């Protein structure tokens, strides 16, 4: 039974059409700037395309991917990327949570400190690289001076070309964390501020200690924010390029050759665009799988605030 409120069918279509029209510029822009390059690079990953051989483009199917999986360089770079991402994730999560807890407390100058924390995040990545290049310089670096003054070392060391690969990677991780930590702090701080005061009060009434309150009250509320932090920091760690470009160039040897750096070398140094595109998609797939794993593991865990 029809009512007087029902709109004619033609009006509904025109509304939908109107809605589509309103969105059309954005859709066109997204298609042109994102979907097309994504599709074109995937198509490129299925081709032999090597700038050194001119504009030749030959369809090779999945061969580029198979070539990559057969290369030792890929597995070495994957190992370096995993170590780099693992170390940066551990540091940003632990330090980010700690700093967010501190900044959530009331103390004089809290606003100023919160603003100060954001500064590294606002620094352009290449500038960050140059900054750390000077700090770690084996001849005139301030890090060397600091350690000499503290009596930790006798003579200046080369941190970015150290004999111990772990030292070089640690220097890279430190520089990377310095840049990305503010993001984690801000996200976690926002989550902390959303924890209801009632829950804290109830826990205090139940005579829960600080650790117990953190574990049973704060942590469950932090979980969604932690998922965001873990996903974003994983993406950032796997994409880390600027620092490596400026600080180590993937060396010494292949110590800091991550997947992102190997992708750059393949596409822009060897000019092998086919394999370079394939590397890009492999990194994207790894990131996608890790993100899915975080969401599945952390969101399905007990006591996680949904």
């Amino acid at each position, binding site marked *: 039974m029809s009512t007087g409120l029902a709109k004619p069918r033609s009006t509904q279509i025109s509304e939908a059409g109107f809605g589509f029209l309103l969105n059309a510029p954005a859709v066109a822009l997204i298609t042109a700037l994102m979907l097309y390059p994504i599709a074109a690079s995937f198509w490129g990953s299925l081709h032999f395309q090597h700038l*050194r051989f001119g504009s030749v483009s030959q369809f090779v199917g999945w061969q580029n991917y198979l070539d990559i999986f057969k290369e030792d360089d890929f597995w070495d770079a994957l190992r370096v990327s995993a170590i780099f991402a693992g170390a940066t994730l551990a540091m940003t999560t632990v330090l980010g949570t700690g700093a967010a807890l501190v900044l959530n407390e009331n103390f004089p100058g809290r606003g100023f400190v919160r603003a100060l924390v954001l500064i590294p995040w606002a620094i352009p990545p290449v500038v960050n690289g140059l900054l750390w290049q000077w700090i770690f310089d084996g001849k005139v670096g301030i890090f060397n001076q600091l350690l000499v003054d503290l009596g930790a070392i006798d003579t200046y060391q080369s941190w970015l070309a150290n004999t111990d690969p772990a030292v070089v990677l640690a220097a890279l991780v430190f520089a990377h964390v310095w840049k990305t930590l503010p993001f984690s702090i801000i996200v976690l701080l926002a989550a902390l501020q959303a924890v209801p005061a009632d829950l804290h009060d109830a826990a205090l009434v139940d005579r829960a200690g600080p650790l117990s309150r953190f574990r049973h009250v704060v942590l469950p509320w932090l979980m969604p924010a932690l998922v965001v932090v873990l996903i974003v920091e994983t993406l950032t760690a796997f994409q880390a390029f600027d620092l490596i470009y400026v600080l180590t*160039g993937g*060396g010494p*040897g292949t110590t800091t050759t991550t997947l992102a750096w190997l992708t750059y*070398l393949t596409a*822009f*140094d*060897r000019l092998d665009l086919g394999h370079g595109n394939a590397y890009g998609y492999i990194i994207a797939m790894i990131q996608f799988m890790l993100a899915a794993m975080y969401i599945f593991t952390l969101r399905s865990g007990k006591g996680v605030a949904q």
Partner: protein
Amino acid sequence: MMSGRTNGSTRRRFIANAGLTIGAASASLVAKPTLAQAPKKLVYVVWAFEPQTHREHADRFEAENPGYKVELVTINFRDYVKKVLAMVNAGEQIDAMLVYNFHVAAWSEGGIIQSVDGMPGLDALNTDMLPFVHDIMMYKGKQYGLPYYQDIAGFLWRDDIVKKVGFSGPPKTLDELKTQAVEIKKQKIMDYPIVFEAILTPSSMYYFYSLVYGAGGRFFDKELEPTFPDRDTMPVQVLDWLVEAFQNWKIVDASSMEMDPNKVRDVFAAGNVTFTVLHRYYMRHLNNPKVSKVADQVKFGEIPAAPSPNRAAEGWARLYGMGKTAPNKEDAWKLIQFLGGKDKSGHYYTAERWVDLQGLGPGYTPVLTSPKVIADTSKWVDTTIAGKMAQSAVVREISKATWYPEADLVLQQQVQRALLRQAKPREALATAAAKIQEIKKKA
């Protein structure tokens, strides 16, 4: 009627006259450009070394050839190769460009540069060209440019320090180099008397190639198969010595692996180093009291090594190449001929200026042996020794392979692994050889 005819005639005459006037005006407008044609645009692409000098040369060319306007495109070193390839692949006009000698093969095969064979005046220029420089310009029997400059790497030492610690002259072998460096360290003059440009960066590692060539070793045979680690053991021997020098004797600064040639030059000029291996043309800077604390104390000579019939210095050249996207080969050649050859007065104008301003080695014998150039160059380097070394210079064997950049990177990575003791020298070089064979097979 009459008046009507008159009127009609006047009107027709007016229209006819107006037509003539418009026609004449149009004709004059059309004719104008043919009388004073707009200059033809030539695009000249360079890496960012002294771009103002390149501009001055372009200006001089324009003054000598009023029909041309040169657009200078300067690209930073790091992006040079990528940007040039991207420009050519996108069809952008490049008439003349700087080319590294180790890209001649790949760029000719890839359609980035084109041969200059058959261009007027080429044969006359070739007769003046240094033989090894001419050889560098050639690929598969065709010539791909004219010389920008040539140079060699050699051994640099601080004469004052060597004498101060009690030695009469520079080391003649690697053992002597160790002895002198240890003594300098012992007398607490320097913590690390030696630095090398050991940074991981494309087509670097001159020190390693030079130490091997200087000792008579080679890396590849005529089929471009690696002769290291076992057929020619010199690369392994040199790497063994380097590892000990870096790790055990501590006479080489570990920061070397952060240093490119310019940084080594600056550290040397600051007085913090006694020995290194570096390009000849850096001597001009190091012996210039305005920019160097060690001016007049820096000497240049052969690599310390036991005598060998194969002893050689590493040599190279950079060239002015012709872009495949040059719209008119004859026009592009005019610019290249000026930049890499003679000006209208018959002088090697740019080559002489590069020697004068930057100490870059000329690719032509008449310039190299001219009294003025010898007199100028003698102020900062021993021209007799440098000249002798240039005569026997060898170019990296695989620099004419299309797969050179990949192979070069692999070799650098493995040498660094050995220096950091991540692999033993022989093992690292065996890995490099295997990887290079794989690269060659795929190419």
